[in-house]
């Protein structure tokens, strides 16, 4: 088990962007889109078999041809100004059907990613995920940040639409937990001397248990990625999936009783400090087809 590199690209102090699945798949969609925008070229992978049970077997005429595992791939790309490494993990190494990694395997996976970052002289790592917030679904999601050192705080808030977690309503202490590898990786990066930032796109609290992605938040995160990299990008390709999800969410919203809708709509002018009864009441209107059997967690700050 280890890291397999197909080639060693010549990179100068690259930034690394990392995505794993999580609530609304906000981070992984953003990193995947960034990979496509930059036309990232695959150059290595973390061998999967010690982390995951295979998904699929291919047996043909009595001969075992192959097993398919969730992939964990590294890509590299170059912008006008910077070299970039992207890492996309299709699954978090977790037990018992849980979505989020924990324990020794998670720590091991995080260290392998950092091994590659260090080998190529990377000094900055960005992970991303979801920030579960009491916002209205028609509002543009902000990007909430957690950083690994004081010096990054000012820098991160210079980017548009980005706030530190402590600046969010009701979270003045800036405390919470980022569940799974999108959080753990930052801790391991810090321990091994790398600067790290987690950029979390806001998702309305009542939608955090839904099984569909939340691309509006991915767009917010992607805009921040683009600003960090000094890119002018057209994110029009997200419109189709945003439209599809919006249609689904609006169909739930249309079923809210009028007094509930009125209360919920107050979020447009002022977000409540904390999720309240309306969060739970709204979840009732999510069609069963779109509910996932979740294990809680996610990148939800407490």
């Amino acid at each position: 088990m280890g890291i397999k590199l197909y080639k060693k690209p010549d990179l100068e102090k690259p930034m690394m962007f990392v995505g794993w699945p999580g609530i609304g798949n906000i981070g992984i969609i953003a990193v995947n889109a960034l990979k496509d925008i930059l036309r990232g070229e695959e150059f290595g992978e973390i061998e999967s078999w010690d982390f995951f049970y295979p998904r699929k077997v291919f047996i043909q005429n009595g001969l075992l041809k192959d097993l398919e595992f969730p992939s964990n791939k590294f890509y590299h790309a170059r912008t006008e100004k910077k070299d970039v490494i992207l890492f996309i993990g299709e699954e978090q190494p977790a037990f018992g059907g849980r979505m989020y990694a924990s324990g020794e395997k998670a720590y091991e996976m995080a260290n392998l990613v950092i091994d590659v970052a260090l080998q190529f002289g990377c000094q900055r790592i960005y992970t991303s995920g979801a920030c579960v917030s009491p916002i209205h679904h028609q509002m543009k999601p902000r990007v909430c940040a957690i950083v690994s050192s004081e010096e990054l705080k000012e820098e991160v808030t210079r980017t548009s639409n980005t706030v530190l977690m402590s600046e969010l309503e009701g979270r003045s202490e800036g405390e919470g937990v980022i569940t799974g590898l999108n959080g753990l990786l930052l801790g391991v990066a810090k321990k091994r001397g790398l600067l790290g930032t987690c950029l979390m796109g806001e998702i309305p609290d009542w939608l955090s248990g839904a099984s569909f992605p939340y691309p509006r938040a991915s767009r917010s995160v992607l805009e921040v990625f683009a600003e960090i990299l000094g890119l002018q990008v057209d994110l029009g390709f997200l419109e189709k999936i945003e439209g599809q999800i919006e249609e689904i969410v609006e169909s739930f919203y249309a079923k809210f009783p009028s007094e509930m809708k009125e209360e919920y709509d107050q979020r447009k002018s002022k977000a409540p400090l904390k999720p309240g009864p309306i969060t739970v009441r709204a979840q009732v209107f999510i069609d069963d087809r779109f509910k996932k059997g979740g294990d809680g967690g996610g990148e939800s700050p407490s």
Partner: protein
Amino acid sequence: MTVLRKGVMAAEKAPVEIYQTPNLDHPSLLIGWQTHELGKLASTVIHFLNERMGGREIAELKPFGFYSFGGIRFKHDLVQIPVSHFWACEKKNLLIFKSDEPEFEYYQFLNTVLERAESHFQAKDVTTLNGTFSFIAHTQPRRILTVFNQNEFKEGLQGYDIEELTWEGPPALSSYLLWIANRRGIPGMSLWVEIPFYLAESEDPQAIKVTLSFLNKRFNLDLDLSEFDLRIRKQHERIARLREENTEINDTIRRLENGLMLNDEEQSKLTKEVHDLLKEEK
């Protein structure tokens, strides 16, 4: 290709305790899983082999890290604890491993089994024993479907009464094991013996006999399998009585015998009736 960092070796984390070193000369390794086995196939085959060939328990794979131990399972009112043991049948040069399926660290578990079988006992090839659900009647013959991890190994086993499996989907633990075995250069095969779905929870002596017949021939075991003829006949008689008493069940089994499919309700009913019958008359 570069490997930057190696993980902790499986063997360091999951030691195998070896009680005694058997007198084996590059044996074949037989593996059976007892956690979700169908028709009690693997455990009965292994028990029979050990009993008839004087199998000695020689080693144990320690369970730590592979099972939750958050409590204890029980089945048929009996406490179950995960066990993973190696046996040696020295007379016929067979190494046997019977185990519960691990709950965690599948790769390390399977790799450790193969690593120890290879390094301590010089196992030359591996065969896993499995049952597979089939929509056949108990009165019909059981086919042995096979999967090999190397073409040469497959070619070398022509002439046996086996059929080739073709399948794409979620892998069983035995397929994962064959894949790892191939990476280690160990030839391997899995036997997937058909079990009528309504015998899956009970014993299927016919499938067990078919499996033992294959092993008998392949490894020249010289085993007398006549006791299974008796067990098959008894089971057939019991189900025949049920068919006489219950025309609906009789009709359902006859449709299977004619190659027709059953709906979910019919399947459940047949399974329950037969399972209750065989449980009662144990």
